[in-house]
């Protein structure tokens, strides 16, 4: 059964999401999402393509406004927050975008230095030292002078991670941090994420559908549904609880099973969402070429 009740972890939550709903036109992308993220958690949001993971993350970082519901970060309601207050709050968290989102006009080192220049009074020498340290942490020593266009996708992602960590924020959001990375680099990024929570005590919220990463780094996990359960939390818990979760869509997703099956309520599972109806196969060559 879909569940959207807050988890029961004790202690003051860093993030509280309550009954979050978001419509795009007539389409409901997020439907009554509620959860809490506690200090030190590596909170993983997983689910199939189009389930609303990235939309949820955009609501958490305050770049999207929900149709209804509440989001509290560090105890402050951000859905009704004024722009200036939100700006101030944003200084307390870092964000790693799926594409890296490095500023193309700046070098890698300048990108990492940017939050330090903007939000601290450190002198240039100290900023330079911090930037070198951050780049070393992500294995990019010697690449600081390069422009983002001169480095690989994996390096961009690591540079973006270094930028997200520049101010040592207590909260870090990460959108598909390992997408497009080779297995070794995936492990490196996962290790960096683990180090963040274990050594620095940061709280990390990760959106991913990389199951290896999910169980390697996650301490709390939620899964968003697709199809009839679009945008609802269909499972949440610890990695062990998720692995043992009875929901067939969860098991199908974890096992990467293309066949899957239907649950008691006749829910369409992930495969059907992926493959769609027969109409998706009816493309004509001329129609596609005429659009190019």
């Amino acid at each position, binding site marked *: 059964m879909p569940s959207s009740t807050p988890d029961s972890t004790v202690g003051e939550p860093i993030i509280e999401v309550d009954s979050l709903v978001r419509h795009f036109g007539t389409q409901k992308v997020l439907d009554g999402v509620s959860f809490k993220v506690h200090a030190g958690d590596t909170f993983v949001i997983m689910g199939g393509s189009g389930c609303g993971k990235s939309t949820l993350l955009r609501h958490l970082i305050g*770049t999207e406004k929900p149709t209804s519901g509440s989001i509290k970060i560090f105890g402050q309601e951000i859905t009704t927050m004024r722009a200036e207050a939100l700006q101030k709050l944003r200084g307390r*968290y870092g964000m790693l*975008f*799926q594409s890296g*989102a490095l*500023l*193309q006009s700046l070098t890698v080192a300048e990108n990492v230095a*940017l*939050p330090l220049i*903007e939000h601290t009074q450190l002198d240039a020498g100290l900023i330079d030292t911090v930037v070198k340290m951050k780049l070393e942490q992500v294995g990019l020593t010697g690449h600081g002078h390069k422009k983002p266009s001169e480095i690989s996708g994996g390096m961009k992602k690591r540079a973006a991670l270094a930028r997200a960590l520049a101010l040592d924020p207590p909260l870090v959001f990460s959108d598909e941090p390992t997408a497009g990375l080779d297995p070794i680099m995936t492990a490196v990024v996962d290790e960096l994420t683990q180090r963040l929570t274990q050594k620095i005590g940061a709280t990390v919220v990760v959106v991913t559908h990389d199951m290896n990463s999910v169980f390697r780094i996650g301490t709390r996990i939620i899964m968003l549904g697709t199809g009839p359960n679009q945008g609802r939390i269909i499972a949440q818990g610890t990695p062990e609880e998720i692995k043992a979760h009875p929901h067939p869509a969860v098991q199908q997703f974890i096992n990467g099973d293309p066949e899957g099956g239907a649950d008691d309520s006749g829910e369409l599972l992930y495969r059907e969402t992926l493959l769609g109806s027969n109409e998706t196969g009816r493309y004509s060559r001329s129609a596609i070429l005429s659009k190019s």
Partner: protein
Amino acid sequence: MIVALRQYFALCGDLLYWLFAAPFRGKPWRIGHTFAQIVRIGVHAVPMSALTALTIGVVLAMQSAAQLAKLGATVYVPGLVSSSLIRELAPLVTAVIVIGRSGSSVTAELGTMKVSEEIEALEVMAIPPMSWLIVPRFLAMVIMMPLLTVFSIYVGLAGGWLISHYSLHMSTAFYVSHALQYVELRDVGIGLLKSGVFGVLVVTIACSIGLNVSGGAEGVGLATTRSVVVSLLSVFIANAVLTALFFF
């Protein structure tokens, strides 16, 4: 259309805040960024403006000389060249050059930043895109458009001098004195006012369309085209309105 207008006026409202209120709340203009944009938007447009203004000055002098020669009145060529350039052609042609070269570039750059999440990244880093991206471009355009116009006037006058001196055999002193004879300070003021208004229109339209791009590379391409078309139409309409205002 209504959505685009709403986005445009929202940007203008934000811009007013960041231009006139934010500096008094500890958020000063980014002077370094503004200089960088002055170079990109203005200085790099100098060669193209110069070539265009020169050809216009030359053509204006040739065409007017051909007609005025029939009346034996080629003496009026310098005045016709100067008044046409200062009141109408220099502000308008400079605006067209800036739209094609710099306005389109601003839209494409901001649009690409939007689709590659760079603008969102700035927001999340608590760096307001208005302060980082828009205000420097606005200031650069408002400073450089009148300067480019003045520069175009000089180069256009030089083009007129080429024909007047080498083809109509006027002395340089005669050309200059007659060119200035038909121009009042008010004309220069109107020309510069026009260029300032054009600058505001071009940069605000380019930024508004660029910041609201969606749909990846195709969206950036469409937005750039739309920015050029809307800017051109707006400048032509504004020119007609301003000319009518000062004509009567």
